[in-house]
């Protein structure tokens, strides 16, 4: 058996030894190098695009909007985003033109000699001023999408009594910071088609987008070894592919386009900022939530991308994992002249769960109750009904809290007081604090998404080996190990004999995108069914008995021909109404409790992490070390979101700290001791009971940190990130008091 064991990553050896081929490791014969001319202003008309006559253009190809072979659109949810700006730019760093040259240096030099003249227009940056502004960015009113959930009678109940508590919470941009920047190679094929090879999460998104850009569907998309995605390689690679393909069509040669880190940070999608207003009524005697009226405003940036889906998940998760009989949530996603925001681990949930958890802290503070006790009083139990009217079962909330609190009994690791290089020895003044926060996270697509998509997987016997064909990419999370482990256990063979096929759309069916905590749970189950179907097909072919092993059946075959079966998602009959946002929002939910212990440096406002305990309901840990790795990496990304990751914008809303020296993510030295408790409450439709775990670890570390800072230093921060500057401002405002 392989499931439940720490099978060594199948892709690990190649990655550790450097044998794995990332897109920039590949150079087809005759390959040209591309670079992108980007808008220097947030909003304006393009007056002209000229080539500097003093530059040697003899071996350089320039492409503008008119060179896009098919439609000038990056097809996703709506058709608002062009491949290359045509006549108008709507955000800084928007692609305006492309160059291809024999060397990368020549391409980069050529970019500097393309002269774009703009007639600047007034930019709109404030999301609160966006709806209905005379400055039009999207549609009739600048609203990308608007979602309301109405459950019970929130406003009536708020007027009826209880203690009414109100708060506003703000979160900023966050960069995914995959270790490998965006990159793609477009290779014209002899048959007139095109191959796209690159760094990506979702090969079929690129098929869909490029079919429009090229005006034909003679194309295949192949995932290269990919250095992380976190959502940042969900939709954006369609743009990179469209650019490489446009130049490949114009030159007739393979074209490689690799982003520089500074360019990637300045141009590509980030986590949506949000302003979230909560108004709740609570019974002051019991601490029970009576009603909530929540208003969410998300900044989508200049184009729609996947923003409506981000808003959807935000709205559904806005109440946090707490039962409340009367809930109204109004969410708006609006346009601004900021580079478009997009998919990022958690997809709207980390934003709202920071707000929901900080609001619970506000209620506890107001009522004079312990924040954890207040949470326990309101935490979902079996049979409770969510704001979408979904009745919950197999709720893991209480269990993850108990497991996390039990793990906290162990003594803390020593304080870093005085041990930090450059930390000033015994002169540093530190205050310790602990914070607890609880997350729920819907696994897989919302509502009928999976039933509509019908994700497919093929499983094939080829010789004595078995090959799994899916479009589910391994972006570091372990798909290329998990799927073979599932198949090996169904067939009763060693995992050494099972491999995922290359994620090449010429070979694999559409399994859906690699997103939404769905790959192991949803596609994994399709793969498991595929393996079962393969066994059935083999048994039928050779007339074997029910007790014959896979290899015994195989030995009876009269042919060496591959035997390949296809399996697809089986509808679980979810009832969901996308117009009222009522019904079964998700097939199941993950549950997690995070406890952060930290020290606040009272002289600098810096936060030093000591320990992060998380107890998370994973359904079934298919591979415990990979599972824990996802949870711990996600939690560290959540700590970065909490205290140090800040996107600093210039007056055109371009990122100016677009370097790894200045966009501060935690290093291994900043990481706390991680204690990870895997709680297994099985999901009946997941493979071996597995639930999705990719996103939940990012949801509430920031809220736990905010509570811990409050406990340590007596300052309340309702904004992310809680940079040392913000903590210090709060400490100073508090006056000399306890920390002087």
């Amino acid at each position: 058996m392989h499931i439940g064991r720490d099978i060594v990553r199948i892709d690990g050896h190649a990655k550790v030894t450097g044998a794995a081929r990332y897109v920039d490791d590949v150079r087809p014969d005759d390959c040209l190098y591309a670079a992108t001319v980007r808008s220097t202003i947030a909003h304006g008309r393009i007056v002209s695009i000229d080539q500097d006559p003093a530059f040697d253009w003899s071996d350089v190809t320039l492409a503008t909007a008119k060179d896009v072979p098919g439609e000038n659109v990056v097809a996703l949810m709506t058709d608002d985003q062009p491949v290359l700006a045509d006549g108008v730019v709507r955000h800084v760093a928007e692609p305006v033109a492309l160059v291809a040259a024999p060397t990368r240096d020549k391409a980069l030099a050529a970019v500097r000699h393309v002269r774009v003249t703009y007639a600047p227009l007034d930019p709109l940056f404030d999301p609160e001023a966006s709806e209905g502004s005379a400055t039009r960015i999207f549609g009739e009113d600048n609203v990308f999408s608007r979602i309301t959930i109405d459950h019970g009678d929130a406003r009536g109940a708020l007027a009826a009594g209880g203690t009414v508590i109100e708060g506003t919470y703000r979160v900023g941009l966050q960069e995914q910071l995959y270790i490998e920047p965006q990159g793609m190679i477009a290779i014209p094929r002899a048959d007139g088609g095109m191959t796209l090879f690159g760094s990506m999460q979702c090969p079929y998104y690129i098929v869909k987008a490029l079919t429009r850009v090229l005006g034909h569907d003679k194309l295949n998309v192949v995932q290269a070894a990919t250095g992380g995605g976190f959502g940042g390689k969900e939709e954006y690679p369609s743009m990179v592919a469209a650019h490489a393909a446009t130049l490949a069509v114009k030159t007739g040669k393979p074209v490689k386009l690799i982003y520089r880190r500074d360019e990637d940070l300045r141009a590509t999608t980030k986590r949506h900022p949000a302003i979230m207003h909560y108004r709740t009524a609570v019974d002051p005697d019991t601490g029970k939530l009576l009603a909530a009226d929540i208003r969410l405003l998300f900044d989508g940036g200049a184009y729609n991308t996947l923003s409506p889906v981000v808003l959807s998940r935000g709205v559904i998760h806005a109440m946090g994992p707490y039962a409340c009989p009367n809930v109204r949530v109004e969410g708006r996603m609006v346009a601004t002249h900021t580079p478009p925001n997009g998919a990022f681990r958690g997809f709207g949930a980390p934003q709202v769960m920071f707000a929901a958890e900080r609001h619970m802290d506000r209620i506890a503070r107001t009522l004079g109750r312990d924040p954890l006790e207040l949470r326990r009083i309101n935490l979902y139990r079996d049979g409770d009904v969510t704001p979408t009217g979904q009745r919950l079962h197999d709720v893991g909330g209480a269990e993850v809290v108990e497991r996390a609190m039990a793990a906290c009994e162990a003594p803390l690791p020593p304080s870093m007081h005085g041990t930090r290089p450059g930390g000033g020895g015994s002169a540093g003044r530190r205050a310790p604090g602990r914070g607890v926060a609880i997350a729920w996270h819907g696994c897989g697509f919302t509502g009928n998404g999976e039933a509509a998509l019908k994700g497919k997987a093929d499983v094939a016997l080829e010789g004595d080996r078995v090959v799994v064909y899916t479009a589910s990419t391994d972006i570091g999370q372990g798909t290329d190990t998990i799927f073979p482990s599932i198949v090996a256990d169904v067939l009763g063979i060693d995992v050494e004999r099972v491999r995922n096929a290359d994620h090449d759309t010429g070979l694999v069916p559409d399994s859906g995108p690699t997103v939404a905590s769905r790959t192991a749970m949803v596609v994994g189950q399709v793969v498991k069914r595929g393996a079962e179907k393969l066994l059935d097909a083999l048994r039928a072919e050779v007339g074997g008995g029910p007790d014959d092993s896979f290899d015994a059946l195989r030995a009876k075959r009269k042919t060496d021909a591959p035997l390949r079966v296809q399996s697809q998602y089986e509808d679980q009959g979810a009832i969901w109404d996308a117009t009222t946002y009522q019904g079964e929002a998700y097939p199941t939910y993950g549950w997690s409790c995070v406890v952060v212990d930290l020290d606040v440096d009272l002289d600098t406002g810096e936060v030093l992490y000591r320990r992060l305990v998380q107890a998370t309901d994973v359904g079934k840990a298919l591979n415990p070390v990979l599972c824990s790795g996802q949870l711990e990496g996600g939690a560290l990304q959540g700590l970065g979101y909490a205290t140090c990751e800040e996107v600093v914008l210039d007056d055109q809303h371009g990122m100016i700290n677009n370097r790894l020296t200045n966009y501060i993510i935690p290093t291994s030295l900043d990481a706390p001791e991680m204690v990870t408790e895997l709680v297994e409450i099985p999901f009946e439709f997941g493979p071996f009971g597995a639930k999705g775990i990719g996103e939940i670890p990012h949801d509430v570390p920031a809220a736990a940190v905010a509570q811990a800072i409050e406990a340590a230093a007596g300052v309340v921060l309702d904004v992310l990130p809680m940079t040392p500057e913000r903590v210090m401002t709060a400490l100073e405002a508090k006056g000399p008091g306890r920390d002087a």
Partner: protein
Amino acid sequence: MLTTSQSPVYVAHSLDEALTLRAAHPEAMPLAGGTDVMVFIEAGAIDPPGFIDLWAARDMAGVADADGGLWIGALTTYTDLERDDRVVKAAPALVEAARTVGAKQIQNRGTLGGNIANASPAGDTLPVLMALDAEVEVASKARGARRIPIDTLYTGYRKLAVAPDELITRVFLPTPHPADVQHFRKVGTRLAQAISKVVFGARVRLEGGKVTDARVAFGSVAATPVRCPKVEAALVGRAPDPAAAGHLLDDIAPIDDVRSTADYRRTVAVRTLRSFISSLA
């Protein structure tokens, strides 16, 4: 925005060769560990017409005991400093600073002379060198060597009082007084790979409960690393008094930039200095 330089590289195998090359190519940029220069080239910030690669001039590296102190070669790396017992004993604050520069790879490659020559206001060793009364030796083929007290070396933002034909050759650290307390503090939001938002070095002589000599220097709070004479004067002649930290605002002039704010730098500089002085009492 070129990512590579096409300019010639002149390789020096000794200090003498380095000075000869420097005289012949005063426009060329001296290159030691390259930990700053490479970043500038990649960012398109500089494109010098040539380089003098000093890495092979091994006589410019290493520590020597002489003249009542330590001579540290310009090519001595941060890792060399951390591992040299004489430096650890005489200049613990300098070692502490070296341990906070970049990450291990940078410490293996980056040099003390390079940190001085790069002249960043955020250079982590610079306030420590000021606190330790370091002198920087520069030399030219034509005129030989001269010594410059480090607190007069910087004449403006990234400007040094070094002639185009001169190279930084070594640094002199006088032997510390037995009653000296050294201190280093760096504030950079994370524990490695951090560029300082505020950094300071201090050396305070405590005799009979009183401060008899004091050096305090800060980085990242002005166009150059700065000595803080007002704070020093307020410290000397009495028991360590945390209130002396209040004079810091007369000695520094921080700005808002991409990494932090002037307000934060002022507040944190005063608070960290006050904590250090309190720890002496």
